[in-house]
């Protein structure tokens, strides 16, 4: 299988920037996978995300989406159809006065048939748990509800890749759970490729692969079970480890035979219970 996104040694410096925001990043993203991107503020995570659907174009190197070079303007529409983005602040992403109109905005602009738009809008709103609010005014919704509408707006474009830049930063625990469940469901059941940028270690723990960015480069790349036990390396990169890992590392240091890679609370508790015998 070919990667859906190929990134070949890209670099990028913002016009006002004194140092590159991306400095030689290469990676392939396989279709249907769930990748989490971690890194401190200013490490280049968001800059990387914006290269995935040609919002930013690399100063050096190449980004290929489904084989199409983002630098080629003729590919722009096709790339944006395949790769949808959801940003941190929903207020900047909502344009219409009625929820369902907002979700319909992108497919309308793509010239999708009205009946198909209706189907996509309803399905997208159901997937994010906002169907019952379809006739509400977005400005009267809470922040978490607005964010779910923004995600529905991207889903209505029927993308192959969903890139989310800290989509849960402002959501309450239930909103976070719903969004994460939606994102996981889109990946596991519908085969949508997910790239999730986050500061929440417990969200990254659910991914297939974790990338840790530092100073515009990929510092760590591997399965969450490999990455999170590296507590010292993560701390040096201004990150932390999930509480599950922190607990297991503490118990191991005290001589308890528990695996450091049991990342979910359920696995963690089971491992400890077994070790307690």
């Amino acid at each position, binding site marked *: 299988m070919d990667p859906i996104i190929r990134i070949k040694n890209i670099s990028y410096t913002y016009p*006002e920037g004194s140092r590159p925001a991306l400095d030689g990043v290469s990676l392939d993203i396989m279709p249907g996978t769930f990748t989490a991107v971690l*890194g*401190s*503020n*200013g490490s280049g995570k968001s800059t990387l995300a914006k290269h995935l659907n040609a919002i930013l174009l690399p100063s050096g190197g190449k980004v290929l989406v489904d084989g199409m070079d983002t630098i080629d303007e003729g590919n722009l529409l096709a790339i944006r159809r395949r790769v949808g983005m959801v940003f*941190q*602040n929903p207020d900047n992403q909502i344009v219409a006065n009625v929820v369902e109109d907002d979700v319909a905005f992108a497919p309308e602009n793509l010239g999708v048939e009205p009946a198909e738009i209706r189907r996509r809008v309803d399905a997208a709103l159901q997937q994010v748990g906002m169907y019952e609010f379809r006739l509400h005014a977005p400005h*009267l919704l*809470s*922040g*978490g*509800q607005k964010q779910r509408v923004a995600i529905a707006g991207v889903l209505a474009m029927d993308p192959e890749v969903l890139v989310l830049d*800290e989509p849960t*930063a*402002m*959501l*309450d*625990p*239930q*909103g*976070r*759970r719903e969004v994460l469940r939606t994102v996981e469901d889109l990946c596991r059941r519908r085969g949508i490729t997910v790239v999730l940028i986050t*500061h929440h*270690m*417990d969200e990254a723990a659910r991914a297939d692969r974790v990338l840790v960015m530092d100073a515009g480069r990929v510092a760590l790349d591997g399965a969450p079970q490999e990455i999170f036990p590296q507590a010292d390396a993560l701390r040096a990169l*201004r*990150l*932390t480890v*999930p*509480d*599950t890992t*922190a*607990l297991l590392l*503490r*118990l191991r240091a*005290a001589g*308890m035979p528990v695996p450091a890679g049991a990342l979910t*609370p*359920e696995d*963690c*508790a*089971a491992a*400890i*219970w077994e*070790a*307690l*015998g």
Partner: protein
Amino acid sequence: MSLIEIRGLTHVYSQGTPFEKAAVRDLDLTLERGGTVGLIGHTGSGKSTLISHLNALLKPTAGTVLLDGEDIFASKASIRTARFRVGVVFQYPEYQLFEETVYADIAYGPKNLKLAAPEIDRRVREAAAFVGLDEGAFDRSPLELSGGQKRRAAIAGVLAMEPELLVLDEPTAGLDPAGREDLLEKLFAWREARDAAVLLVTHDMAIATRCDRLVVMAEGRIVLDGTPEAVFAHGDELASIGLELPEAANIARLLRDKGAALPSSLYTVDALAQAILALRGKGDAPC
């Protein structure tokens, strides 16, 4: 006398329309000087509506808000006083920077207080130092700052008012773990130094574990109010209103369900690790 005393507060949005919604219902709450109170609750539980009454941005539909025993809605003068004595940092305050320079932005509040120039200058420098904003940034446009610096500048603007109650709505959202920890430490240090009260509105249970007292809201009412230890012992109730336990408390609960003799008061990784190791010690002991 309590710094803030809220009695029977009710706030109804869009009254008389199909969207009518009581966001806060007959709520009583007292806040004292000193200490950090965490206000937690599901989206739409009424937290933002509640805090908007503390500095008179919203007027109660019913009930009163007393600041040092005075009704803050009594007169225009009392409303103005409340705005000066209660500082509110809303979500993403970095979008609210508007002056030409960082210095002017931080000085905006103290200027409105009609303070003398040296006093304004002292406050600006002190507030910037508290949040860890370098004075080298003073002459720059707020737009040139990084996201983290903008957040600090915006918070400094409120600290420069030297409020007696500082309310922050999700102040650490979007910050990396090290930045989160750093900002929290600075806020705790500020509160200590000024003997002010801090009210932290948050969804982040890791932050909630650091507060002295937690107030939990659901559907416009306060449903739990106590120390983190007391509040986190109500795991089922928290789950039923869409909140979750801190991860350590959750793991402790899963272990208790399996039969481990762990107390319900554990909610930090440290305390849980110690309790588990103590259990192991018992298990190893000869019967």
